[in-house]
Protein backbone atom coordinates (compact mmCIF):
# COMPACT_ATOMS: atom_id res chain seq x y z
CA UNK A 1 0.00 0.00 0.00
CA UNK A 2 1.82 3.08 -1.17
CA UNK A 3 1.22 6.05 1.02
CA UNK A 4 0.93 9.52 -0.36
CA UNK A 5 3.94 11.38 1.07
CA UNK A 6 1.75 14.21 2.19
CA UNK A 7 -0.41 11.95 4.35
CA UNK A 8 2.26 10.29 6.40
CA UNK A 9 1.06 11.83 9.60
CA UNK A 10 2.66 11.53 12.95
CA UNK A 11 -0.07 9.13 14.06
CA UNK A 12 1.86 6.20 12.73
CA UNK A 13 4.68 5.81 15.17
CA UNK A 14 7.97 4.33 14.35
CA UNK A 15 7.58 0.62 14.63
CA UNK A 16 10.62 -0.93 16.18
CA UNK A 17 9.18 -4.43 16.11
CA UNK A 18 8.72 -4.71 12.40
CA UNK A 19 10.23 -8.13 12.31
CA UNK A 20 7.94 -9.62 14.93
CA UNK A 21 4.40 -9.20 13.74
CA UNK A 22 2.94 -10.82 16.83
CA UNK A 23 4.68 -8.43 19.18
CA UNK A 24 3.74 -5.56 16.97
CA UNK A 25 0.11 -6.55 17.13
CA UNK A 26 0.30 -6.93 20.88
CA UNK A 27 1.76 -3.46 21.18
CA UNK A 28 -0.96 -2.04 18.98
CA UNK A 29 -3.56 -3.91 20.97
CA UNK A 30 -2.20 -2.54 24.18
CA UNK A 31 -2.44 1.00 22.83
CA UNK A 32 -6.11 0.54 22.04
CA UNK A 33 -6.73 -1.20 25.35
CA UNK A 34 -5.12 1.53 27.35
CA UNK A 35 -7.65 4.04 26.15
CA UNK A 36 -10.52 2.05 27.52
CA UNK A 37 -11.53 3.08 31.01
CA UNK A 38 -13.41 -0.11 31.74
CA UNK A 39 -10.41 -2.15 30.80
CA UNK A 40 -8.18 -0.18 33.08
CA UNK A 41 -10.48 -0.55 36.06
CA UNK A 42 -10.81 -4.26 35.37
CA UNK A 43 -7.10 -4.75 35.12
CA UNK A 44 -6.46 -2.81 38.32
CA UNK A 45 -8.94 -4.91 40.23
CA UNK A 46 -7.44 -8.07 38.85
CA UNK A 47 -4.00 -7.07 39.97
CA UNK A 48 -5.33 -6.40 43.46
CA UNK A 49 -6.89 -9.85 43.62
CA UNK A 50 -3.78 -11.46 42.26
CA UNK A 51 -1.82 -9.81 45.03
CA UNK A 52 -4.33 -11.14 47.50
CA UNK A 53 -3.84 -14.61 46.16
CA UNK A 54 -0.10 -14.35 46.45
CA UNK A 55 -0.31 -12.93 49.95
CA UNK A 56 -2.42 -15.85 51.06
CA UNK A 57 0.71 -17.86 51.67
CA UNK A 58 2.08 -15.53 54.27
CA UNK A 59 -0.26 -15.36 57.25
CA UNK A 60 0.05 -19.05 58.24
CA UNK A 61 3.78 -18.61 58.23
CA UNK A 62 3.47 -15.78 60.67
CA UNK A 63 1.40 -17.72 63.13
CA UNK A 64 -0.31 -21.08 62.73
CA UNK A 65 -3.54 -19.68 64.10
CA UNK A 66 -3.93 -17.81 60.83
CA UNK A 67 -4.29 -20.93 58.74
CA UNK A 68 -7.60 -20.70 56.90
CA UNK A 69 -8.74 -24.27 57.51
CA UNK A 70 -7.06 -25.44 60.62
CA UNK A 71 -6.03 -22.25 62.28
CA UNK A 72 -7.60 -22.01 65.65
CA UNK A 73 -7.10 -19.07 67.90
CA UNK A 74 -6.50 -20.31 71.43
CA UNK A 75 -8.28 -17.28 72.77
CA UNK A 76 -11.33 -17.18 70.51
CA UNK A 77 -13.68 -19.99 69.64
CA UNK A 78 -16.69 -18.26 68.18
CA UNK A 79 -17.45 -15.57 65.68
CA UNK A 80 -16.13 -12.18 66.60
CA UNK A 81 -15.98 -8.87 64.84
CA UNK A 82 -12.94 -7.10 63.42
CA UNK A 83 -10.09 -6.57 65.88
CA UNK A 84 -6.35 -6.01 65.81
CA UNK A 85 -5.69 -9.72 66.07
CA UNK A 86 -8.11 -10.53 63.30
CA UNK A 87 -8.60 -7.68 60.88
CA UNK A 88 -11.87 -8.98 59.56
CA UNK A 89 -12.93 -10.93 62.58
CA UNK A 90 -13.32 -14.66 63.06
CA UNK A 91 -15.74 -17.29 61.87
CA UNK A 92 -17.86 -19.55 64.01
CA UNK A 93 -14.98 -21.62 65.31
CA UNK A 94 -12.50 -18.83 65.69
CA UNK A 95 -10.66 -18.99 62.38
CA UNK A 96 -9.39 -15.76 60.88
CA UNK A 97 -11.65 -14.45 58.16
CA UNK A 98 -9.09 -12.36 56.32
CA UNK A 99 -6.86 -15.38 55.81
CA UNK A 100 -9.78 -17.33 54.50
CA UNK A 101 -10.50 -14.48 52.13
CA UNK A 102 -6.93 -14.49 50.83
CA UNK A 103 -6.95 -18.23 50.38
CA UNK A 104 -10.26 -17.91 48.59
CA UNK A 105 -8.65 -15.56 46.10
CA UNK A 106 -6.06 -18.17 45.36
CA UNK A 107 -8.68 -20.85 44.85
CA UNK A 108 -10.80 -18.56 42.69
CA UNK A 109 -7.95 -17.81 40.34
CA UNK A 110 -6.93 -21.41 40.21
CA UNK A 111 -10.39 -22.73 39.50
CA UNK A 112 -11.33 -19.93 37.19
CA UNK A 113 -8.27 -20.05 35.04
CA UNK A 114 -7.88 -23.80 34.85
CA UNK A 115 -11.53 -24.44 34.09
CA UNK A 116 -11.56 -21.65 31.54
CA UNK A 117 -8.37 -22.86 29.95
CA UNK A 118 -9.65 -26.40 29.66
CA UNK A 119 -13.00 -25.40 28.25
CA UNK A 120 -11.36 -23.05 25.77
CA UNK A 121 -8.98 -25.76 24.72
CA UNK A 122 -11.80 -28.22 24.20
CA UNK A 123 -14.04 -25.66 22.57
CA UNK A 124 -11.38 -24.42 20.19
CA UNK A 125 -10.28 -27.86 19.06
CA UNK A 126 -13.83 -29.07 18.62
CA UNK A 127 -14.88 -25.85 16.91
CA UNK A 128 -12.00 -26.02 14.49
CA UNK A 129 -12.62 -29.65 13.67
CA UNK A 130 -16.32 -29.07 13.20
CA UNK A 131 -15.79 -26.07 10.99
CA UNK A 132 -13.05 -27.64 8.97
CA UNK A 133 -14.40 -31.14 8.54
CA UNK A 134 -17.92 -30.11 7.77
CA UNK A 135 -20.90 -32.32 7.02
CA UNK A 136 -21.43 -35.28 9.34
CA UNK A 137 -18.70 -34.50 11.80
CA UNK A 138 -19.86 -30.93 11.98
CA UNK A 139 -23.50 -31.83 12.52
CA UNK A 140 -22.65 -34.42 15.14
CA UNK A 141 -20.40 -32.15 17.11
CA UNK A 142 -22.77 -29.24 16.95
CA UNK A 143 -25.71 -31.37 18.03
CA UNK A 144 -23.63 -32.50 20.97
CA UNK A 145 -22.81 -28.90 21.72
CA UNK A 146 -26.49 -27.99 21.60
CA UNK A 147 -27.40 -30.72 24.03
CA UNK A 148 -24.78 -29.70 26.52
CA UNK A 149 -25.59 -26.04 26.19
CA UNK A 150 -29.24 -26.61 27.00
CA UNK A 151 -28.55 -28.10 30.41
CA UNK A 152 -27.87 -25.93 33.45
CA UNK A 153 -24.28 -26.68 34.36
CA UNK A 154 -24.74 -26.21 38.05
CA UNK A 155 -27.57 -28.65 38.28
CA UNK A 156 -25.79 -31.24 36.18
CA UNK A 157 -22.76 -31.11 38.40
CA UNK A 158 -25.12 -31.45 41.34
CA UNK A 159 -26.66 -34.64 40.10
CA UNK A 160 -23.25 -36.00 39.19
CA UNK A 161 -21.99 -35.33 42.66
CA UNK A 162 -24.94 -37.26 44.02
CA UNK A 163 -23.72 -40.24 42.07
CA UNK A 164 -20.04 -39.95 42.69
CA UNK A 165 -20.06 -38.67 46.22
CA UNK A 166 -18.00 -35.78 47.46
CA UNK A 167 -16.06 -34.10 44.69
CA UNK A 168 -12.59 -32.75 44.98
CA UNK A 169 -11.64 -29.42 43.52
CA UNK A 170 -10.03 -30.77 40.40
CA UNK A 171 -13.00 -32.92 39.54
CA UNK A 172 -15.14 -29.84 39.85
CA UNK A 173 -12.82 -27.97 37.51
CA UNK A 174 -12.97 -30.78 35.00
CA UNK A 175 -16.75 -30.98 35.14
CA UNK A 176 -17.10 -27.25 34.66
CA UNK A 177 -14.81 -27.42 31.65
CA UNK A 178 -16.76 -30.33 30.20
CA UNK A 179 -19.96 -28.38 30.27
CA UNK A 180 -18.80 -24.96 29.20
CA UNK A 181 -17.01 -25.64 25.96
CA UNK A 182 -20.05 -25.48 23.61
CA UNK A 183 -20.33 -21.71 23.68
CA UNK A 184 -16.76 -21.27 22.56
CA UNK A 185 -16.93 -23.94 19.92
CA UNK A 186 -19.77 -22.23 18.10
CA UNK A 187 -17.85 -19.04 17.66
CA UNK A 188 -14.65 -20.81 16.72
CA UNK A 189 -16.52 -22.93 14.25
CA UNK A 190 -17.99 -19.87 12.57
CA UNK A 191 -14.58 -18.29 12.35
CA UNK A 192 -13.09 -21.49 10.95
CA UNK A 193 -15.79 -21.68 8.33
CA UNK A 194 -14.98 -18.23 7.08
CA UNK A 195 -11.25 -18.87 7.18
CA UNK A 196 -11.62 -22.14 5.33
CA UNK A 197 -12.41 -20.36 2.10
CA UNK A 198 -9.44 -18.05 2.19
CA UNK A 199 -6.81 -18.38 -0.51
CA UNK A 200 -4.00 -19.15 1.84
CA UNK A 201 -5.74 -22.31 2.96
CA UNK A 202 -6.10 -23.34 -0.67
CA UNK A 203 -2.44 -22.68 -1.11
CA UNK A 204 -1.57 -24.83 1.86
CA UNK A 205 -3.70 -27.66 0.53
CA UNK A 206 -2.12 -27.44 -2.86
CA UNK A 207 1.33 -27.71 -1.38
CA UNK A 208 0.27 -30.95 0.21
CA UNK A 209 -0.21 -29.99 3.81
CA UNK A 210 -2.09 -32.55 5.82
CA UNK A 211 -5.40 -31.61 7.40
CA UNK A 212 -3.84 -31.73 10.80
CA UNK A 213 -1.16 -29.31 9.77
CA UNK A 214 -3.61 -26.95 8.19
CA UNK A 215 -5.76 -26.82 11.27
CA UNK A 216 -3.01 -26.28 13.75
CA UNK A 217 -0.53 -24.31 11.79
CA UNK A 218 -2.80 -22.08 9.73
CA UNK A 219 -6.25 -21.86 11.22
CA UNK A 220 -5.42 -21.92 14.89
CA UNK A 221 -3.28 -18.76 15.00
CA UNK A 222 -6.09 -16.79 13.46
CA UNK A 223 -8.68 -18.25 15.74
CA UNK A 224 -6.66 -17.89 18.92
CA UNK A 225 -7.45 -14.23 19.67
CA UNK A 226 -11.15 -15.07 19.75
CA UNK A 227 -10.45 -18.03 22.02
CA UNK A 228 -8.56 -15.86 24.43
CA UNK A 229 -11.36 -13.35 24.44
CA UNK A 230 -13.88 -15.98 25.36
CA UNK A 231 -11.58 -17.30 28.01
CA UNK A 232 -12.22 -14.23 30.11
CA UNK A 233 -15.93 -14.87 30.03
CA UNK A 234 -15.43 -18.52 30.83
CA UNK A 235 -13.40 -17.60 33.87
CA UNK A 236 -16.30 -15.65 35.25
CA UNK A 237 -18.75 -18.50 34.82
CA UNK A 238 -16.29 -21.00 36.27
CA UNK A 239 -15.79 -18.92 39.38
CA UNK A 240 -19.51 -18.48 39.84
CA UNK A 241 -20.28 -22.16 39.38
CA UNK A 242 -17.61 -23.25 41.82
CA UNK A 243 -18.79 -20.68 44.33
CA UNK A 244 -22.39 -21.79 43.92
CA UNK A 245 -21.44 -25.41 44.37
CA UNK A 246 -19.46 -24.63 47.47
CA UNK A 247 -22.30 -22.54 48.78
CA UNK A 248 -24.73 -25.37 48.40
CA UNK A 249 -22.38 -27.66 50.24
CA UNK A 250 -20.98 -29.66 47.36
CA UNK A 251 -17.58 -28.12 47.13
CA UNK A 252 -14.33 -29.67 48.14
CA UNK A 253 -14.37 -29.64 51.93
CA UNK A 254 -10.61 -29.40 52.13
CA UNK A 255 -10.39 -26.14 50.25
CA UNK A 256 -11.45 -22.76 51.48
CA UNK A 257 -13.23 -20.90 48.75
CA UNK A 258 -15.37 -17.83 49.03
CA UNK A 259 -18.44 -19.89 48.28
CA UNK A 260 -17.51 -22.18 51.14
CA UNK A 261 -17.23 -19.19 53.44
CA UNK A 262 -20.71 -18.12 52.47
CA UNK A 263 -21.98 -21.58 53.13
CA UNK A 264 -20.59 -21.47 56.64
CA UNK A 265 -22.20 -18.10 57.30
CA UNK A 266 -25.50 -19.42 56.11
CA UNK A 267 -25.52 -22.83 57.66
CA UNK A 268 -24.32 -21.65 61.05
CA UNK A 269 -27.05 -19.07 61.21
CA UNK A 270 -24.73 -16.08 61.37
CA UNK A 271 -26.37 -14.41 58.41
CA UNK A 272 -27.96 -11.66 60.42
CA UNK A 273 -25.37 -11.14 63.08
CA UNK A 274 -22.06 -11.14 61.31
CA UNK A 275 -21.84 -8.66 58.46
CA UNK A 276 -18.06 -8.69 58.70
CA UNK A 277 -18.27 -12.35 57.75
CA UNK A 278 -21.16 -12.16 55.32
CA UNK A 279 -20.02 -9.22 53.26
CA UNK A 280 -16.37 -9.77 52.32
CA UNK A 281 -16.66 -13.11 50.46
CA UNK A 282 -19.68 -11.98 48.46
CA UNK A 283 -18.04 -8.69 47.58
CA UNK A 284 -14.93 -10.53 46.47
CA UNK A 285 -16.76 -12.97 44.25
CA UNK A 286 -18.73 -10.19 42.63
CA UNK A 287 -15.74 -7.89 42.16
CA UNK A 288 -13.52 -10.59 40.73
CA UNK A 289 -16.25 -11.61 38.31
CA UNK A 290 -16.77 -7.98 37.42
CA UNK A 291 -13.10 -7.37 36.77
CA UNK A 292 -12.75 -10.36 34.47
CA UNK A 293 -15.86 -9.25 32.68
CA UNK A 294 -14.49 -5.74 32.26
CA UNK A 295 -11.25 -7.19 30.98
CA UNK A 296 -13.18 -9.20 28.46
CA UNK A 297 -15.19 -6.29 27.19
CA UNK A 298 -12.15 -4.11 26.80
CA UNK A 299 -10.42 -6.90 24.96
CA UNK A 300 -13.40 -7.14 22.67
CA UNK A 301 -12.68 -3.68 21.42
CA UNK A 302 -9.12 -4.66 20.75
CA UNK A 303 -9.99 -7.85 18.99
CA UNK A 304 -13.25 -7.01 17.27
CA UNK A 305 -12.72 -7.62 13.58
CA UNK A 306 -15.05 -4.77 12.80
CA UNK A 307 -12.69 -2.29 14.33
CA UNK A 308 -9.47 -3.80 13.21
CA UNK A 309 -8.47 -5.14 9.85
CA UNK A 310 -8.07 -8.87 9.94
CA UNK A 311 -4.54 -9.78 9.02
CA UNK A 312 -4.17 -13.44 8.44
CA UNK A 313 -0.78 -14.94 8.99
CA UNK A 314 0.14 -16.46 5.68
Amino acid at each position, binding site marked *: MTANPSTQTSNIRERPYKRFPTIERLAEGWAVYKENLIGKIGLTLLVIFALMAVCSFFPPLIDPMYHPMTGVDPLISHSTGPSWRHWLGTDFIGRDILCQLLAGARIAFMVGISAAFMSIFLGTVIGMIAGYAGKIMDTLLMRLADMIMVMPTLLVVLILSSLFGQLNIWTIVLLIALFRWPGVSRVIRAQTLSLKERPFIEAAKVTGASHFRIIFRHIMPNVLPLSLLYMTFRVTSAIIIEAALAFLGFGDPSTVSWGMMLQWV*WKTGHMFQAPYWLLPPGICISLLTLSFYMLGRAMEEVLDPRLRKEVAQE
Partner: protein
Amino acid sequence: MEVRKFVLKRFVEIFIIFFVILTVLFLLFRLAPGDPVTRMVDPTLTPEDSQHLIAQLGLDQPMGLQYLYYIKNFLTGNFGNSFHYGETVSSIIWSRLPNTIILFTTSILLSAFVGVFLGKIASWKKGTKTDTWMTLGALVCHTLFLPWLAMLMIWIFGFKIGWFPLNGMISPEIWMDPSSGVWLKILDVLHHMVLPLATLFSIHFGSYLLLMRSSMLDTLKEDYILTARAKGLEEKTIRNKHAAPNAALPVVTSVGISLAFSLSGGALTETVFSWPGIGRELVFAVSNSDYPLAQGSFLLIAIVVLMANLVVDVLYAYLDPRIKY
Protein backbone atom coordinates in the same frame (compact mmCIF):
# COMPACT_ATOMS: atom_id res chain seq x y z
CA MET B 1 -40.34 -22.25 6.23
CA GLU B 2 -43.77 -22.51 7.71
CA VAL B 3 -44.09 -21.99 11.39
CA ARG B 4 -45.81 -25.31 11.91
CA LYS B 5 -43.03 -27.25 10.22
CA PHE B 6 -40.48 -25.36 12.21
CA VAL B 7 -42.22 -26.07 15.49
CA LEU B 8 -42.54 -29.72 14.67
CA LYS B 9 -38.88 -29.95 13.80
CA ARG B 10 -37.86 -28.35 17.04
CA PHE B 11 -40.20 -30.56 18.99
CA VAL B 12 -38.61 -33.66 17.54
CA GLU B 13 -35.14 -32.32 18.29
CA ILE B 14 -36.08 -31.63 21.87
CA PHE B 15 -37.61 -35.04 22.22
CA ILE B 16 -34.38 -36.60 21.04
CA ILE B 17 -32.29 -34.50 23.39
CA PHE B 18 -34.45 -35.54 26.30
CA PHE B 19 -34.13 -39.14 25.39
CA VAL B 20 -30.37 -38.85 25.30
CA ILE B 21 -30.39 -37.23 28.72
CA LEU B 22 -32.62 -39.99 30.03
CA THR B 23 -30.31 -42.64 28.67
CA VAL B 24 -27.15 -40.96 29.92
CA LEU B 25 -28.63 -40.73 33.38
CA PHE B 26 -29.48 -44.40 33.23
CA LEU B 27 -25.95 -45.34 32.25
CA LEU B 28 -24.33 -43.10 34.83
CA PHE B 29 -26.49 -44.57 37.52
CA ARG B 30 -25.44 -48.06 36.63
CA LEU B 31 -21.79 -47.24 36.07
CA ALA B 32 -21.19 -45.07 39.09
CA PRO B 33 -19.26 -46.52 41.99
CA GLY B 34 -21.31 -48.27 44.64
CA ASP B 35 -24.24 -50.59 44.51
CA PRO B 36 -27.05 -49.36 42.29
CA VAL B 37 -29.55 -51.21 44.41
CA THR B 38 -28.90 -49.23 47.56
CA ARG B 39 -29.31 -46.11 45.53
CA MET B 40 -32.74 -46.86 44.34
CA VAL B 41 -34.09 -48.85 47.23
CA ASP B 42 -34.54 -47.31 50.61
CA PRO B 43 -32.37 -49.30 53.01
CA THR B 44 -34.99 -48.94 55.70
CA LEU B 45 -37.56 -50.94 53.78
CA THR B 46 -38.39 -54.44 54.87
CA PRO B 47 -36.79 -57.24 52.82
CA GLU B 48 -40.12 -58.09 51.18
CA ASP B 49 -40.79 -54.51 50.19
CA SER B 50 -37.24 -54.21 48.95
CA GLN B 51 -37.65 -57.30 46.80
CA HIS B 52 -40.89 -56.00 45.43
CA LEU B 53 -39.30 -52.68 44.55
CA ILE B 54 -36.29 -54.33 43.00
CA ALA B 55 -38.54 -56.39 40.78
CA GLN B 56 -40.58 -53.37 39.87
CA LEU B 57 -37.53 -51.41 38.88
CA GLY B 58 -35.98 -54.38 37.18
CA LEU B 59 -32.74 -54.12 39.13
CA ASP B 60 -32.18 -57.84 39.08
CA GLN B 61 -32.38 -58.04 35.30
CA PRO B 62 -29.63 -57.73 32.72
CA MET B 63 -28.73 -54.23 31.50
CA GLY B 64 -30.82 -54.20 28.35
CA LEU B 65 -34.01 -55.25 30.12
CA GLN B 66 -33.27 -52.83 32.90
CA TYR B 67 -33.26 -50.07 30.35
CA LEU B 68 -36.69 -51.07 29.14
CA TYR B 69 -37.99 -51.14 32.67
CA TYR B 70 -36.48 -47.74 33.16
CA ILE B 71 -38.23 -46.28 30.15
CA LYS B 72 -41.49 -47.93 31.06
CA ASN B 73 -41.30 -46.56 34.57
CA PHE B 74 -40.54 -43.16 33.29
CA LEU B 75 -43.44 -43.17 30.88
CA THR B 76 -45.84 -44.27 33.56
CA GLY B 77 -44.55 -41.61 35.88
CA ASN B 78 -43.08 -44.04 38.34
CA PHE B 79 -39.92 -42.62 39.76
CA GLY B 80 -39.88 -44.67 42.84
CA ASN B 81 -40.22 -43.44 46.36
CA SER B 82 -38.37 -40.71 48.08
CA PHE B 83 -36.25 -41.97 50.95
CA HIS B 84 -36.61 -38.77 52.81
CA TYR B 85 -40.27 -38.03 52.47
CA GLY B 86 -41.53 -41.54 52.11
CA GLU B 87 -43.95 -40.50 49.39
CA THR B 88 -43.76 -41.21 45.71
CA VAL B 89 -41.32 -39.03 43.90
CA SER B 90 -43.83 -38.01 41.29
CA SER B 91 -46.28 -36.65 43.82
CA ILE B 92 -43.53 -34.53 45.33
CA ILE B 93 -42.10 -33.12 42.15
CA TRP B 94 -45.42 -32.42 40.54
CA SER B 95 -46.51 -30.46 43.56
CA ARG B 96 -43.32 -28.43 43.43
CA LEU B 97 -43.47 -27.69 39.75
CA PRO B 98 -46.05 -24.87 39.79
CA ASN B 99 -44.09 -23.00 42.45
CA THR B 100 -41.00 -22.99 40.33
CA ILE B 101 -42.90 -22.04 37.20
CA ILE B 102 -44.49 -19.05 38.92
CA LEU B 103 -41.21 -17.67 40.13
CA PHE B 104 -39.16 -18.56 37.09
CA THR B 105 -41.55 -17.26 34.45
CA THR B 106 -42.28 -14.04 36.26
CA SER B 107 -38.61 -13.30 36.80
CA ILE B 108 -37.66 -13.91 33.19
CA LEU B 109 -40.54 -11.86 31.82
CA LEU B 110 -39.88 -9.01 34.19
CA SER B 111 -36.13 -8.96 33.59
CA ALA B 112 -36.55 -9.22 29.84
CA PHE B 113 -39.11 -6.46 29.48
CA VAL B 114 -37.47 -4.04 31.83
CA GLY B 115 -33.99 -4.85 30.55
CA VAL B 116 -35.00 -4.37 26.93
CA PHE B 117 -36.80 -1.15 27.72
CA LEU B 118 -33.85 0.29 29.61
CA GLY B 119 -31.42 -0.93 27.00
CA LYS B 120 -33.36 0.88 24.35
CA ILE B 121 -33.17 4.09 26.33
CA ALA B 122 -29.48 3.60 27.03
CA SER B 123 -28.79 3.27 23.33
CA TRP B 124 -30.62 6.53 22.56
CA LYS B 125 -28.62 8.35 25.16
CA LYS B 126 -25.35 6.77 24.19
CA GLY B 127 -22.36 8.61 25.58
CA THR B 128 -24.34 10.59 28.13
CA LYS B 129 -24.23 10.14 31.88
CA THR B 130 -27.51 8.24 31.83
CA ASP B 131 -26.04 5.71 29.49
CA THR B 132 -22.83 5.34 31.43
CA TRP B 133 -24.64 4.83 34.70
CA MET B 134 -27.08 2.40 33.18
CA THR B 135 -24.36 0.35 31.57
CA LEU B 136 -22.22 0.33 34.65
CA GLY B 137 -25.20 -0.48 36.83
CA ALA B 138 -26.19 -3.34 34.57
CA LEU B 139 -22.66 -4.68 34.58
CA VAL B 140 -22.30 -4.52 38.34
CA CYS B 141 -25.69 -6.07 39.04
CA HIS B 142 -25.05 -8.83 36.58
CA THR B 143 -21.88 -9.89 38.33
CA LEU B 144 -23.25 -9.98 41.85
CA PHE B 145 -23.14 -13.41 43.37
CA LEU B 146 -26.72 -14.60 43.49
CA PRO B 147 -26.87 -16.47 46.80
CA TRP B 148 -25.05 -13.62 48.44
CA LEU B 149 -27.39 -11.05 47.00
CA ALA B 150 -30.26 -13.20 48.19
CA MET B 151 -28.85 -13.28 51.71
CA LEU B 152 -28.36 -9.52 51.65
CA MET B 153 -31.93 -9.03 50.55
CA ILE B 154 -33.24 -11.17 53.37
CA TRP B 155 -31.02 -9.49 55.86
CA ILE B 156 -31.84 -5.93 54.92
CA PHE B 157 -35.43 -6.12 53.77
CA GLY B 158 -36.60 -9.06 55.77
CA PHE B 159 -34.70 -8.81 58.99
CA LYS B 160 -33.65 -5.25 59.48
CA ILE B 161 -36.53 -3.41 57.88
CA GLY B 162 -39.00 -6.22 58.26
CA TRP B 163 -41.09 -5.48 55.22
CA PHE B 164 -40.96 -8.96 53.80
CA PRO B 165 -41.01 -12.47 55.16
CA LEU B 166 -37.70 -14.17 55.62
CA ASN B 167 -38.43 -17.25 53.61
CA GLY B 168 -40.97 -19.61 52.24
CA MET B 169 -43.78 -19.12 49.81
CA ILE B 170 -46.76 -18.89 52.11
CA SER B 171 -47.68 -17.91 55.61
CA PRO B 172 -49.13 -21.02 57.17
CA GLU B 173 -51.48 -18.99 59.36
CA ILE B 174 -53.24 -17.52 56.42
CA TRP B 175 -53.51 -20.73 54.49
CA MET B 176 -54.66 -22.79 57.41
CA ASP B 177 -57.35 -20.33 58.34
CA PRO B 178 -60.53 -21.47 56.58
CA SER B 179 -61.89 -17.96 56.44
CA SER B 180 -59.06 -16.57 54.33
CA GLY B 181 -60.29 -15.57 50.92
CA VAL B 182 -58.61 -16.39 47.64
CA TRP B 183 -57.34 -12.86 47.20
CA LEU B 184 -55.70 -12.87 50.58
CA LYS B 185 -53.91 -16.07 49.72
CA ILE B 186 -52.73 -14.72 46.40
CA LEU B 187 -51.55 -11.54 48.06
CA ASP B 188 -49.70 -13.63 50.57
CA VAL B 189 -47.84 -15.52 47.89
CA LEU B 190 -47.00 -12.28 46.13
CA HIS B 191 -45.73 -10.85 49.36
CA HIS B 192 -43.39 -13.77 49.74
CA MET B 193 -42.40 -13.57 46.13
CA VAL B 194 -41.08 -10.01 46.22
CA LEU B 195 -37.61 -10.68 47.57
CA PRO B 196 -36.79 -13.77 45.47
CA LEU B 197 -38.13 -11.99 42.43
CA ALA B 198 -36.08 -8.91 43.20
CA THR B 199 -32.97 -11.04 43.54
CA LEU B 200 -33.47 -12.86 40.27
CA PHE B 201 -34.43 -9.66 38.52
CA SER B 202 -31.32 -7.82 39.66
CA ILE B 203 -29.05 -10.52 38.36
CA HIS B 204 -30.70 -10.97 35.01
CA PHE B 205 -31.95 -7.62 33.79
CA GLY B 206 -28.40 -6.41 33.24
CA SER B 207 -27.62 -8.81 30.47
CA TYR B 208 -30.82 -7.92 28.62
CA LEU B 209 -30.05 -4.25 28.99
CA LEU B 210 -26.55 -4.59 27.61
CA LEU B 211 -27.65 -6.82 24.79
CA MET B 212 -30.52 -4.59 23.71
CA ARG B 213 -28.28 -1.58 23.88
CA SER B 214 -25.67 -3.01 21.56
CA SER B 215 -28.33 -4.51 19.32
CA MET B 216 -29.99 -1.11 18.95
CA LEU B 217 -26.69 0.57 18.19
CA ASP B 218 -26.07 -1.96 15.45
CA THR B 219 -29.58 -1.70 14.06
CA LEU B 220 -29.43 2.08 13.90
CA LYS B 221 -26.62 1.74 11.39
CA GLU B 222 -28.76 -0.26 9.00
CA ASP B 223 -29.87 1.10 5.64
CA TYR B 224 -33.57 0.89 6.34
CA ILE B 225 -33.09 3.33 9.17
CA LEU B 226 -31.64 5.76 6.65
CA THR B 227 -34.73 5.21 4.54
CA ALA B 228 -36.97 5.89 7.48
CA ARG B 229 -35.09 9.08 8.21
CA ALA B 230 -35.27 10.10 4.55
CA LYS B 231 -39.01 9.64 4.67
CA GLY B 232 -39.11 12.46 7.14
CA LEU B 233 -40.21 10.45 10.15
CA GLU B 234 -39.59 11.68 13.67
CA GLU B 235 -36.64 10.25 15.56
CA LYS B 236 -38.93 8.76 18.18
CA THR B 237 -40.91 6.90 15.54
CA ILE B 238 -37.75 5.68 13.89
CA ARG B 239 -36.35 4.28 17.12
CA ASN B 240 -39.51 2.67 18.41
CA LYS B 241 -41.16 1.47 15.25
CA HIS B 242 -38.26 0.74 12.96
CA ALA B 243 -35.19 0.06 15.03
CA ALA B 244 -36.50 -1.50 18.23
CA PRO B 245 -38.44 -4.41 16.69
CA ASN B 246 -35.40 -5.43 14.70
CA ALA B 247 -33.06 -4.92 17.61
CA ALA B 248 -35.24 -7.00 19.90
CA LEU B 249 -34.89 -10.15 17.81
CA PRO B 250 -31.39 -11.12 18.95
CA VAL B 251 -32.54 -10.51 22.50
CA VAL B 252 -35.26 -13.13 22.13
CA THR B 253 -32.64 -15.58 20.93
CA SER B 254 -30.50 -14.80 23.93
CA VAL B 255 -33.40 -15.52 26.27
CA GLY B 256 -33.29 -19.03 24.93
CA ILE B 257 -29.58 -19.35 25.36
CA SER B 258 -29.61 -18.05 28.91
CA LEU B 259 -32.49 -20.23 30.07
CA ALA B 260 -30.11 -22.79 31.51
CA PHE B 261 -28.31 -20.12 33.47
CA SER B 262 -31.60 -18.69 34.67
CA LEU B 263 -32.71 -22.05 35.91
CA SER B 264 -29.51 -22.57 37.88
CA GLY B 265 -30.07 -19.17 39.39
CA GLY B 266 -33.61 -20.17 40.13
CA ALA B 267 -32.46 -23.25 42.03
CA LEU B 268 -30.06 -21.17 44.11
CA THR B 269 -32.73 -18.61 44.85
CA GLU B 270 -35.21 -21.25 45.88
CA THR B 271 -32.68 -22.74 48.22
CA VAL B 272 -31.79 -19.53 50.00
CA PHE B 273 -35.38 -18.35 50.24
CA SER B 274 -36.73 -21.78 51.04
CA TRP B 275 -39.10 -21.38 48.18
CA PRO B 276 -40.66 -24.83 47.71
CA GLY B 277 -39.73 -25.40 44.11
CA ILE B 278 -38.12 -28.12 42.06
CA GLY B 279 -34.66 -26.56 42.22
CA ARG B 280 -34.61 -26.63 45.96
CA GLU B 281 -35.93 -30.16 45.94
CA LEU B 282 -33.04 -31.25 43.78
CA VAL B 283 -30.50 -29.63 46.07
CA PHE B 284 -32.06 -31.21 49.13
CA ALA B 285 -32.33 -34.60 47.50
CA VAL B 286 -28.67 -34.58 46.58
CA SER B 287 -27.65 -33.46 50.07
CA ASN B 288 -29.70 -36.27 51.59
CA SER B 289 -28.58 -38.89 49.10
CA ASP B 290 -32.21 -39.34 48.23
CA TYR B 291 -31.39 -40.61 44.82
CA PRO B 292 -34.85 -41.34 43.41
CA LEU B 293 -35.99 -37.84 44.28
CA ALA B 294 -32.82 -36.34 42.85
CA GLN B 295 -33.25 -38.20 39.62
CA GLY B 296 -36.91 -37.29 39.38
CA SER B 297 -36.28 -33.62 40.09
CA PHE B 298 -33.47 -33.46 37.62
CA LEU B 299 -35.51 -35.02 34.86
CA LEU B 300 -38.39 -32.67 35.49
CA ILE B 301 -36.04 -29.71 35.40
CA ALA B 302 -34.68 -31.01 32.12
CA ILE B 303 -38.19 -31.12 30.73
CA VAL B 304 -38.84 -27.57 31.93
CA VAL B 305 -35.67 -26.27 30.29
CA LEU B 306 -36.38 -27.99 27.02
CA MET B 307 -39.98 -26.82 26.95
CA ALA B 308 -38.91 -23.29 27.71
CA ASN B 309 -36.41 -23.46 24.85
CA LEU B 310 -39.18 -24.60 22.56
CA VAL B 311 -41.42 -21.74 23.63
CA VAL B 312 -38.68 -19.22 22.93
CA ASP B 313 -37.95 -20.74 19.54
CA VAL B 314 -41.60 -20.63 18.58
CA LEU B 315 -41.85 -17.07 19.78
CA TYR B 316 -38.89 -16.11 17.65
CA ALA B 317 -40.31 -17.85 14.61
CA TYR B 318 -43.50 -15.94 15.15
CA LEU B 319 -41.80 -12.59 15.52
CA ASP B 320 -39.36 -12.72 12.63
CA PRO B 321 -41.27 -12.51 9.36
CA ARG B 322 -38.33 -13.97 7.51
CA ILE B 323 -39.08 -17.30 9.13
CA LYS B 324 -42.84 -17.06 9.14
CA TYR B 325 -43.18 -16.49 5.44
